[in-house]
Structures are given as structure tokens and as C-alpha cells.
């Protein structure tokens, strides 16, 4: 089954075509990277897929379901999770509270208003487990804004994973990270279970080529090329837009 099916998607902003007639198919379990120069429309495409923008025309299906007219939170409930290019976490809440909100998101208990959350053992244990798995347990009571940039980029990914997604959209997960941090995040992504279909926007070609099996190259809102690593590396049009 196709995890994501994009058909003839276009987005127009007051006369400017940010995305022009894009069609894309991503198979379940696939690792796909979307690359392209600045302004190519990569993040816009993510916003369209995740529901933060609605297309001017075209269709979207998620795991066989038509989602073109669904709101962002409804698509998330179908098993899609995303990270943001600019870290988008809950700065004035503690690390524990941050992950808790992620864990809670897929549980019916999230509407409960007559019991304190600490009485929900399952949610608390799951949050604890995630924090310990990523070696962040000692920092659980720190306010998120007091964590380093690198740690926050990591938590962006962990937050997305907390909702046990089937499709994961990662928007420049290594942006602004040091080489060591980049290596760490790259290995985290590579180590993800194969059940999670992963789409990655990356600026860093090395990271993209290391994680992905298939690459889609975007240029001026359209798909310039699509194929395996070798096909893309050897494609003169691709090298041209990066060097030219």
C-alpha cells in the first residue's frame, strides 16, 4: 500500500506558484529524501502534506485514504507525524511535560479533566520510557528553553515518535547542528523501525544520501528528478542546480 499518494498538487500564493503540479508516490516502509535548493518548495510541500496549508488544486491520500480536505490534526490522527524546520516545542514547559503531550496525543485519556495526569500510569511510564531510551531522563524537569539547540532538535524527532506514527515527515532535522550532533541524529533516523515510512527534507546532501533509498529533487516548485542515489548523483541537471 502506498503510504502517501500525491496527485497533481499545486499551491498558488497570490499569483506565485510555490508548488506546481507535483505528483509523488511513497511506498510503505520507504525512506525518501526530498532535496533541492532554497526556495524550491520543500517545506511548502510538507505543509501541504501535513495539512498546515491547503492546496490550490490536486489530491492527497494517506494510506489509501483521501485526506485533501482534512485538517492537520485529523491527518495526524491517521498516523502522520512531523517535525518543524524551526524548532517547535513547548518552551515554557518541562521536558517531561513536552514528551507527555506527545505520548498523550494518541490516547483517549487526553480529554479527561477529573483526574490528574499522574494517575494515568500508562502515560507516565511511556513518557519515562522514551526519555530514558534517549538518555534524557536526568533533564526531565528542566524547562525546554533551557536545553541546548542540539538537544531541542533531537527532542523534535522524539516528540514526533511519541505518537507512534506510520508516516514520519522530518523537516531539516539536522539544521544548525554540529558534525557530532548531525551524526547522532542521522543514526537515530537510520535506526528507526522499518514500519515507519520516513520522508526527509534535507539540505545536507550527505545526510540525505545516507538515510534515503530514493531521492526526489525539487526545483522551483516542481519535480526535477526522482530516482535512486546513483541515478540522482549521476544526473547532470541535479548537479547543475546546485553548482550553477
Amino acid at each position, binding site marked *: 500500500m502506498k503510504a502517501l499518494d500525491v496527485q497533481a498538487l499545486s499551491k498558488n500564493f497570490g499569483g506565485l506558484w510555490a508548488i506546481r503540479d507535483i505528483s509523488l508516490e511513497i511506498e510503505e516502509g520507504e525512506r525518501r529524501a526530498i532535496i533541492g535548493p532554497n526556495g524550491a518548495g520543500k517545506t511548502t510541500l510538507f505543509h501541504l502534506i*501535513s*495539512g*498546515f496549508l491547503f492546496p490550490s488544486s490536486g489530491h492527497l491520500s494517506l494510506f489509501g485514504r483521501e485526506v485533501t480536505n482534512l*485538517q*492537520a*490534526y485529523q491527518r*495526524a*490522527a491517521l498516523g502522520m*507525524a*512531523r517535525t*518543524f524546520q524551526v524548532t*517547535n*516545542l*513547548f*518552551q*515554557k*514547559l518541562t521536558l517531561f*511535560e513536552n514528551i*507527555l*503531550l*506527545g505520548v*498523550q*496525543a*494518541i*490516547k483517549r*485519556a*487526553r*480529554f*479527561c*479533566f*477529573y*483526574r*490528574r*495526569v*499522574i494517575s*494515568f500510569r500508562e*502515560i507516565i511510564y511511556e513518557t519515562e520510557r522514551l526519555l530514558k531510551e534517549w538518555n534524557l531522563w536526568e533533564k526531565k524537569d528542566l524547562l525546554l528553553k533551557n536545553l541546548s539547540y542540539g538537544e531541542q532538535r533531537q527532542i523534535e524527532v522524539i*516528540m514526533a515518535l511519541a*505518537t507512534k506514527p506510520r508516516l514520519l515527515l522530518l523537516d531539516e532535522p539536522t539544521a544548525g547542528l554540529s558534525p557530532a550532533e548531525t551524526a547522532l541524529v542521522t543514526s537515530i533516523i537510520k535506526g528507526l523501525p522499518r514500519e515507519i515510512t520516513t520522508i526527509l527534507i534535507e539540505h545536507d546532501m550527505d545526510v540525505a544520501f545516507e538515510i534515503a533509498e530514493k531521492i526526489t529533487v525539487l526545483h522551483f516548485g516542481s519535480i526535477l528528478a526522482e530516482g535512486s542515489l546513483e541515478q540522482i548523483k549521476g544526473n547532470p541537471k541535479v548537479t547543475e542546480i546546485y553548482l550553477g
Partner: protein
Amino acid sequence: MPSLFAALILLLPFLFSNYYVGLVIQIFIMAIFAMSLDILVGHTGLPSMGHAAYYGVAAYATGFLCLAGVKNFWFVIVFGMGLGGLTAAFFGLLAIRARGPYFMLITLALSQVLWGIAFKWRSITRGDDGIPGIGRPEIGMGIDLKPDFYFYYFTFAIFLIVLVVLFILLNSPFGHTLRGIRESESRMKALGYNVWLYKYLGFIFAGVFAGISGVLWVYYSGFVNPSYFGVDLSVKALLMLILGGSGSLFGPSIGAGIIVLLENLVSGFTERWSLVLGIVYVTVIMLFSEGISSIIKRGRN
């Protein structure tokens, strides 16, 4: 230190005159009002400007019920809470789609229209004169609430109940969700939360609790009039949050204490108390717009 304070509150009616007892009753009621607003302002990030609407609706309901001969407190309080919640349910539908300043504008306008209606619809609301002569309610158990002495403990008990209920609500999964929304709506949406629905439910909760304070104040003061819908009440509640610290459990109560004491102090001093209060408010906002709670917190660090 806190236990000394608690003892003071518990024994106050034995130690002080009726004037002070009345003051603290006012503080309890206003604290409930401020806490209800803080659900929206401090925890959800919704700067609601017309909070007096739900307070006033419950207050007038209390007055009308009294005129109809209903004196049973439990019936009236449930009715008042329900009406406060219903009004919030209606206004929420109109206001929550808006963001920031637009939200403030709409909530303000809606509450002001209620004020205008209470003012003009003389045949029902008695207009500016209001409905006087509302006696203390009956709570059964052979307790007479007419003396302020007993009404004090009654209000204190209700205040404690509300405090505990809000503590649970604000620490429930629902409460955590509200704070997530306050921090980043987009993040919450990306996680799969129906943000609009949570805001709407929070809005209704806030209206229900505001209704409690409206009913109590009518029973305390003995009358209801359009001032219950006043802008000054809605704004005063926001000031309480700013002064006492919003987003915390006790902040709104501290702020309520400060404002009530301040108003009573100043009005005892001068006929121009409104002017003095205005100057005080402007000064306080210019100097302390973060709230005393956060200043204390920073002091500890």
C-alpha cells in the same frame, strides 16, 4: 509561615470585626472569579476580555430566582453554573475562531452588549436600579447564613472546593493539553489534538466557574445590577492575574486579595478613589507587568 497564615484565615471571624470579615469574603469570591479567568488566560493563552458576562448572567439568574421565591442554594448554584456555561458555549462559538486582539475585541463586545441589555431592559432587569433585597440563601442543615460570620465559612468552603477541583482540572490530561495549546498551537495540531475543541471546552469551564462567583457575590451583597457585567470587572480580573501571577494555582487568589484590599483601602481614604485606583493601575502595569509570582520566582533563583 504558611501555617500561621492558614490559622489566620480559619480564625478570622473570631479575631476581627465584621468589616474585615466582609473583606475576606469578597476576596474569596473574587479569587474564584480570577481563577476561572486564568483557565483561559494563564493556561490556554486566550486573553478573554469579557469574563464578567458569565458572572453577570449567573448573578441575574440568582436575582430572578430569588424574586420567584427560590432560596435553595444548591438549586441556584447549579442553575447559575449551567447558565454561565451555556453563555460561554454560545459566546465561544462566536469568539474562539478569532486570534489575539480580535478575540479580545469580540469577547469585550459580547459582554458589553449584555451590559447594555441589562441596562435598557428595564421591565425585566429593572435597569440601572437593579434587583435589591436579595437575602442569604438556604443551605439546609439548620445553618443560617444571614450573619457574615457563617457566610464567611460557607464562602471559604466553596473557595476550597473550587481550588481543589481546579487543581485537579489543571493537572489533568485536559489541563496539560491547554498549556500545550498556550505554548504552541501548531505543535499541538501536528500531534493530532483538536485545538479548537479544547479551547471551546476550556471556555465553557471558565464560564461555569465564573458563574459560581456571580451567584456568591449576589448573596453576599444582596443585590444585582448592570455593573455585574461591567468592563471594569472584566478588566479588574485581568489585573488580578497580572499582579498575582497567571498560570499558577495561587496567583489569581493573591491578585484578588491585592485588588480587593487596595480598592477598599483607597475608597476609605478619599472620595477620588476611582482616580487614585486608575493611577495605581497604570503605575503597576508600567512597573510590574509580569506579576508578583514570577518576580518572586526569579528572586528565588
